[in-house]
C-alpha cells in the first residue's frame, strides 16, 4: 500500500451471523438482476429487444451493495451497463423491461433503451453511454447540493475504461478542489470493452489515481456484496458528513461478453471460469446455506418469486404500447418553453 492511499482494501468475508435476514435480502436483490438479465437475453434472441444490451451478470454485488447504502434523497449517475443499478435502486422492473422493449410505458418512454434508463422519483440520472461523460454530471449534481447545503450524496458509477478519459481526471480534480459530496464508484472489471487494463493503463492501480487528487480511495472486493455495502456505507457517510468526494474501486468481473455483439475473443476462457468460482450470488447463497440460514426450499421460494416478478415485467412490456409517431418531436424542448418557433 502506498503512502498516498488513505483507505486500503476493505475487509471482505464480514461475519453475517445475526444479519442473515439482511444478507438474504441482498441475495434476493442480486438474483433479481441476474434473472432479469437472463430473460433479456432470451428476448434479445427473439428480437423483442434490439440495439445494444450490456449485461451486468457477475457484477451484481456492486450494484446491490452500493444501492443498499444510499438514502432516497441521494442521486445516482450510471453508465450504459445499468440494469442492475436501476433495479437495485428501486426502479420498477416493469418500467425497465418496457424500456428495453421500446414501449412508451418504459422508464424513458422507449426513447432511451437499455443504455439510457432514467427515473426522476428515484433520482436516477441515466444511463450515460459516453464513457466518462457521466462524471461531470455527478460533480454538478453534488455542486447543487453543496450550494443548497443539503446533506445528500451523489453516487457516480463508471468502469475502469473511464479512468483513461480526460473527464475522469477533470471531474476528480474539480470535486476535490471544491470538496463536493460525490461518491465515485469505479466498477473495475479489468476490460475497457475488449482491451485489458494492463494494455491501456500505464498505472493499473486505479485507487492511486484518485488518491493523487487527494480523494480518499478504497479498494473493495466487488464480488462480495457485504464488503461492498460496508465500504459504501462508510464512504457515503463520510461524504454526507462533509468529507468531500470519495472513491471506491470495486474489483469485479463480467461473466458475459461486453454486449450482445461481442464474440469475446480477447479473454482467456480459464480466466472467466476462475472468476465464476467467485460468483457473488453463489458465494453468498453458499455461505448462508452453510451457516444454516438458507435452505434449498428457501432458495427455491425466492427463485420462484423472482421468476414471477420477471414474467410479470415481460407481460407488462409485451402488453405495452408504442409511442405514437405524432409524439416524435415531444421533449426535444420542454413543453413549457418560451416562444413557438419551429426548430
Amino acid at each position, binding site marked *: 500500500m502506498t503512502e498516498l492511499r488513505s483507505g486500503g482494501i476493505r475487509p471482505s468475508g464480514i461475519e453475517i451471523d445475526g444479519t442473515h435476514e439482511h444478507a438474504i435480502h441482498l441475495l434476493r436483490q442480486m438474483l433479481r438482476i441476474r434473472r432479469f438479465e437472463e430473460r433479456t437475453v432470451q428476448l434479445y434472441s427473439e428480437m423483442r429487444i434490439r440495439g445494444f444490451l450490456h449485461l451486468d451478470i457477475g457484477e451484481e454485488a456492486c450494484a446491490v451493495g452500493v444501492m443498499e447504502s444510499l438514502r432516497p434523497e441521494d*442521486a445516482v*449517475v450510471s453508465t450504459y451497463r445499468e440494469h442492475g443499478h436501476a433495479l437495485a435502486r428501486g426502479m420498477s422492473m416493469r418500467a425497465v423491461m418496457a424500456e428495453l422493449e421500446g414501449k412508451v410505458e*418504459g*422508464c*424513458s*418512454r*422507449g*426513447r*432511451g433503451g437499455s443504455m*439510457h434508463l*432514467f*427515473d*426522476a422519483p428515484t433520482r436516477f*440520472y*441515466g*444511463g*450515460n453511454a*459516453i464513457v466518462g*461523460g457521466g*462524471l*461531470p*454530471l*455527478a*460533480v*454538478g*449534481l*453534488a*455542486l*447543487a*447540493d453543496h*450550494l*443548497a447545503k443539503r446533506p445528500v450524496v*451523489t453516487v457516480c458509477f463508471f468502469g475502469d475504461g473511464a479512468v483513461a478519459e*480526460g*473527464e475522469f481526471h*477533470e*471531474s476528480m*480534480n*474539480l470535486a476535490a*478542489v*471544491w470538496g463536493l459530496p460525490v461518491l465515485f464508484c469505479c466498477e473495475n472489471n479489468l476490460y475497457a470493452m475488449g482491451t485489458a487494463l494492463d494494455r491501456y493503463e500505464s498505472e493499473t492501480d486505479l485507487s492511486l489515481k484518485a488518491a493523487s487528487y487527494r480523494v480518499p480511495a478504497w479498494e473493495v472486493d466487488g464480488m462480495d456484496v457485504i464488503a461492498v455495502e460496508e465500504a459504501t456505507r462508510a464512504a457515503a457517510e463520510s461524504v454526507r458528513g462533509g468529507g468531500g468526494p470519495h472513491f471506491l474501486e470495486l474489483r469485479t468481473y463480467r461473466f458475459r461478453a461486453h454486449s450482445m455483439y461481442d464474440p469475446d475473443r480477447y479473454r482467456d476462457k480459464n480466466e472467466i471460469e476462475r472468476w465464476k468460482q467467485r460468483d457473488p450470488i453463489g458465494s453468498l447463497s453458499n455461505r448462508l446455506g452453510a451457516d444454516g440460514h438458507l435452505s434449498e426450499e428457501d432458495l427455491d421460494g425466492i427463485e420462484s418469486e423472482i421468476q414471477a416478478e420477471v414474467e410479470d415485467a415481460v407481460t407488462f412490456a409485451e402488453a405495452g404500447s408504442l409511442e405514437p409517431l405524432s409524439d416524435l418531436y*415531444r*421533449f*426535444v*424542448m*420542454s*413543453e*413549457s*418553453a*418560451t*416562444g*413557438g*418557433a*419551429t*426548430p
Partner: protein
Amino acid sequence: MTELSYRDAMREALREALNRDERVFLMGEDIGRYGGCFAVTLGLLEEFGPDRIRDTPLSESAFVGAGIGAALGGMLPIVEVMTVNFSLLALDQIVNNAAALLYMSGGQFNVPLVIRMSTGGGRQVAAQHSHSLEGWYAHVPGIRVLAPATLEDARGMLWPAVEDPDPVLIFEHASLYNMRGDLADTTGDITSAAVRRFGDDVTIIAYGGTVRTAIEAAGTLAEGGISSEVIDLRSLRPLDTATFVSSAVRTHRAVVVDEGWCTGSLAAEVCSRIAEEAFYDLDAPVRRVCSAEVPMPYAKHLEDAALPQPADVVEAVRALGA
C-alpha cells in the same frame, strides 16, 4: 438612457440575474479574481462572493458538465467558456448530455443551463481563438442558440435565457465588447429576428458581429441609391424563418452575411429556407458572404481578407443587380 458598453450591458444582465434568483450562480475560467478574460464579470466576485462566482480549473468538459449536473439538481447555472474554440473541449457535454437529456429521459430531466462564450475574429489572435463555430451548435436539436448583436440584446436576452427550461448558448462576438452606446429599453424576447434597418431593394441577413458589417454596407449602398433591409437573426436556433423570408419576398433579393466558413454554414441553412419558401419571389440567386475557408491567419491584412467586410457585402448586393 445610460451610456455604456456591450460589456457593461452584459455585466448588468448578470448582476440582475444573480439578484433576481438565488439559484443563479456563475462559473468559468478566471471569471472571479481576474474579472473575466473580457472583463465582463469584473467586480461580481466582490459583490456576490465565491460561492456564486466560481473560478474553475482549465477543465471545460468538467465545468460545463458540472453546469448541466447543477441544473439537473435545481440550480440555474450560467457557465462562461472563454471562446467558442475552447468550447470544443466541452462538446461532448453540450451535445451528448445537455441537448439530449430531456429527450433521452422521456421528458423527465430538463437542463435549465446558460452557457456564454465569445466568438469571432478581428483581434489578430489567430487560428485557435477566432473562429465562428456557433453554426455547429445551431445544428443540434435540444438547445437554443442566441447571438446578441446590440447593447439591448446583451442586456435583455440573458434573463429569458436563464428562465428558459432548456439549455441556452449565448454567443458574444468579441469585437462587440467595446461597442458603446445608449441603452434603450430591452424586450426580453429570445425568439424573433429583428429588422435593424428597413429597406426595399435587398434583404441583408446577418447576426452577431456581422450585423454591424451589414449596417455599414447598407449605408454605402444607400449612397448609391440602393435601399437595404438589414435583418439581425438574434436566435440562431430556432431560426425565425418567417421574418427573413417575408422580407426576401418583398425585396426579391437576399444576401446572407456569416462569419462562419461558407461550407455547411448557418448561412447555407438560411439560403435553403429562402430557396424553399421564396424561390418564385426572387429576382436573383441568394448570395452568401462568409469567412474565407482558412484557419484564421494572424497578420492583419490576411485576417481582414479572411473576414466578411462591408465592401464584400456591397459587392455581393451589387452583383444581384439591385
